[in-house]
């Protein structure tokens, strides 16, 4: 049965695929110096895909298509839009990175991974879920190790591959146990199978733990975060940005759907587990961030901490909780892309990425410094930037569900966060270059950087001030789970 609904449910993926094919055809005919234009093509194509999906691919009543493989609802749709936006921004940030910007295959790999993420967000079946997770991960392994002559990049790619393979093996084992216990792989049928009461709590807990290893790796919660700093530091910076935003959000999309749809009966056991993991993740992530001297490692550890904050919304197990997670991820994706984008724009000119090298940056390029301020204050949870509202919503959900202790842990952690984020801004605004000759070392921004960073910065401020529309969308997405 192939109806318009069936088609609409995978419209964004079809468009991404068409875009990939187009790049595949066009790119070889371009001269080497034109190849970077693939970035414009990718970003433009993705934005067109977003617009077309909004026009023709909006979900109505939640439906399951493709024989129970895909769930067509607002939850998946909103995440898809976020991923494609993040993909477009990443493609633009690729362009002026000498090592990957002129290589068409980098853009193709990005699109392939994006395809996987989109499917992750809508998978309604464990088989589909596993396939889409792998489709997402494998191109990212390659992209992380893309700079073959750079030892750190190679290490990053290999490390990511090893950890990723291990984690997905655990998850696959968990999936197979679920199938063994219930005889079905469809998420929406699992609920009924569990209701029959064929599974003891202990067994269910074991299964959930196995699955959590795989997803915990994707969203990098402690103790499955070990890969993140090394990979973020070694991988090309645009990839680090993509990994820490879209890839993490995709993990959350799966986490939310899986735990709310398939295992609500065991909520009591897994919400407490997740609450403890969330507290540990925030605390460990933040304490480790304190000692970092490299900006990419700092962002890596802080992104671990942010996974912990977002988790508070999952723990709350309410509609507001899910809404706040989605809102948090939307704000976080924009903010962290902006942060990585600024780092990229800076390192491209200066060639360094230690925190102390940022000294005097506000005199070298005041606008870039302002955008960095926007990103870091938003990460620290200050208004009028997205991070503040997002954090308040997550905390509100936590208090509503009675997890006041968890919210207090979150608050102590955001104070630590304020400290280290402001510490970086101290270098940017207060300290000066060794010879105080910043005027001789300007940081020019190329057009893709200027455009992307400006759009992201405005987006971060918009989410933080005019938050009703984003909240409405997040709410519509959350509604499909209840």
């Amino acid at each position, binding site marked *: 049965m192939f109806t318009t609904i069936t088609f609409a449910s995978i419209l964004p993926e079809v468009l991404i695929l068409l875009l990939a094919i187009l790049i595949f055809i066009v790119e070889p005919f371009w001269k080497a110096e034109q190849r970077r234009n693939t970035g414009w093509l990718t970003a433009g194509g993705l934005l067109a895909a977003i617009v077309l999906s909004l026009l023709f691919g909006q979900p109505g009543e939640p439906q399951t298509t493709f024989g129970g493989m895909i769930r067509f609802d607002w939850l998946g749709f909103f995440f898809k839009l976020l991923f494609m936006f993040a993909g477009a921004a990443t493609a633009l940030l690729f362009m002026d990175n000498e090592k990957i910007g002129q290589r068409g295959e980098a853009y193709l790999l990005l699109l392939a991974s994006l395809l996987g993420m989109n499917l992750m967000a809508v998978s309604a079946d464990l088989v589909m879920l596993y396939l889409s997770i792998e489709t997402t991960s494998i191109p990212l392994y390659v992209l992380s190790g893309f700079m073959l002559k750079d030892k750190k990049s190679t290490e990053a790619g290999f490390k990511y591959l090893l950890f990723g393979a291990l984690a997905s093996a655990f998850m696959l084992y968990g999936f197979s146990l679920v199938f063994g216990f219930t005889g079905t792989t469809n998420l929406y049928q699992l609920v009924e199978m569990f209701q029959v009461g064929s599974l003891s709590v202990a067994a269910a807990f074991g299964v959930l733990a196995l699955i959590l290893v795989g997803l915990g790796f994707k969203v990098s919660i402690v103790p499955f975060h070990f890969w993140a700093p090394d990979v973020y530091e070694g991988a090309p910076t645009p990839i680090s940005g993509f990994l820490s935003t879209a890839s993490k959000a995709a993990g959350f999309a799966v986490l939310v759907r899986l735990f709310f749809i398939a295992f609500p009966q065991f909520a009591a056991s897994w919400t407490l587990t997740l609450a403890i993991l969330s507290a540990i993740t925030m605390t460990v992530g933040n304490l480790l961030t304190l000692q970092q001297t490299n900006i990419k490692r700092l962002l890596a550890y802080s992104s671990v901490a942010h996974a912990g904050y977002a988790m508070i919304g999952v723990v709350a197990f309410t509609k507001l909780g899910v809404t706040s997670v989605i809102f948090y991820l939307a704000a976080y994706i924009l903010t962290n892309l902006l942060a990585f984008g600024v780092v990229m724009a800076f390192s491209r000119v200066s060639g360094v990425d230690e925190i102390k090298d940022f000294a005097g940056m506000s005199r070298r390029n005041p606008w870039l410094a302002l955008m960095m301020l926007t990103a870091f204050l938003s990460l620290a949870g*200050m*208004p009028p930037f997205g991070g503040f509202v997002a954090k308040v*919503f997550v905390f509100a959900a936590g208090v509503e569900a009675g997890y006041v202790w968890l919210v207090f842990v979150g608050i102590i952690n955001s104070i630590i966060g304020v400290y280290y984020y*402001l510490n970086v801004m101290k270098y940017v605004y207060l300290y000066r270059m060794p010879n105080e000759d910043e005027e001789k070392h300007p940081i020019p921004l190329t057009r893709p950087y200027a455009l992307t960073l400006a759009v992201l910065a405005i987006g971060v401020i918009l989410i933080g001030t005019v938050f*009703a529309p984003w909240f409405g969308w997040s709410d519509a997405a959350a509604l499909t789970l209840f």
Partner: protein
Amino acid sequence: MNFPVLSVITFTPMVAALIILMMPSHRRNETRAVALASATFALLLSVWVYFSYDQATGGYQFIEKYNWLPMLGISLHFGVDGMSAPLVLLTGVVMFTGVLISWGDEDPHVKAGIQDRPREFFAFLFLLAGGVFGVFVSLDLFMLFFFYEIAVFPMYLLIAIWGWVVTREYAAMKLTLYLFVGSVVSLVGALAMYWVQYQNTGVLSFDMLVMEKAGFSQAFQIAWFLPVFLGFAVLGGIWPFHNWSPDGHVAAPTAVSMFHAGVLMKLGAFAALRVGIMLLPEGAKYWSWLIMTFAGIAVVYGAYIAFVQTDMKYMIGFSSVSHMGLVMLGLSTLNQNGLTGAGVQMFSHGVMTALFFAVTGMIYDRAHTRMIPELGGMMKIMPFAGVGFIIGGLVSMGMPGFSGFVAEFPIFMGVWQTQWLVAVIASISIVITAAYIMINIRKVFFAELPEKLHGHVGDITVLDKIAIVTLCLLMVGLGLFPGLMVPMVQTGVENILRLLGGA
């Protein structure tokens, strides 16, 4: 009345900050002119609000309400009452005078005011000012927090970048962390109130006028009053959480010290009143003895520490702790006299301390020292600054005829009604204050000009003089005509008493 004056006041500084950021960085005087123009505009509007507030009607006026996120009951709900209208005026005044004295003197021998990157300075300062206006006029708890945080974080940059080289990094970080801890602790309390109200009434709303009627149980109020009140009171400089404040004052550039002591500390006291006392009145009654103890200690202890300082800025910083202690003391009485006094004292102290810091900044910029023993003879060099400082000093001592008397007298009356012993102990501070102010005036302004300062110390600029005159006129005017402010504050107090009595 359809002109949305309160939102225009709130967003004027923010829009001005954006415009200033867009200007090229080498057009320094144009940047300052834009800053001054928008500050004047905000001041005029706040004066207009103050004088067209209808005291006979009372209550909240100039109300604006826009649904911002109806799903969670968040709205942009603005309005001023007799308590907040003077504070809006105060913010306008401090903003205006702060820009005036930051203009400074580009002469390389003087280099007074802000000469390093004035564009960024004014942008951050105005962002802060917008946040302050926002807190004073917000009737929505969520937006109150929103503006409160906006008012806090630019302080870090302002102090760290333009502050006193020796302590600025330490002081800026200390201040930010203290204030952030306080505000997030209050935030959790606010969220708890939000949900309990939802359970009680079934209405999802952050609107404080709705929350007043939420009917929080006594146990709930007692449990959450302290976190909420103290969280905000940290910014009000309440003992024992006052430690960040003098350090911050000392490290901050002059205009920021003025903002910090003049307005930001009121922000803390005001939010503690509006969220702590007005929404949790039973909790306030239960804990008022503790707040009174803390405030009483702050009054005497702050004055004593100020007495032993040799650095003028530290002296004024600790005197702010002492005077803000009086505000807290007034709030803790929960009676009409005390609350009225606290309201007037917020305004009076704001103007007075802004003047103190302005004069100290002028002296420091020209003499390059703030150490009282190293200074002298300033009266001959900068008579305007000297006279201004003396008037400020008289206000600080609570002399009749000046605004300080109008404010402190009712506070002491109110405290006497509640607990006469505290009033007696707190009144010691008046003596100590008189001592350190007199000693300071004698040494800095009238003693012999030290050898080291001969020759290179010049007079202040015209703009500085305008700022001093503006501030002095307000203090003397309020002292001679208390009717300009006291009845207005009383209308605000009536509302608070209604909440305290009705609960």
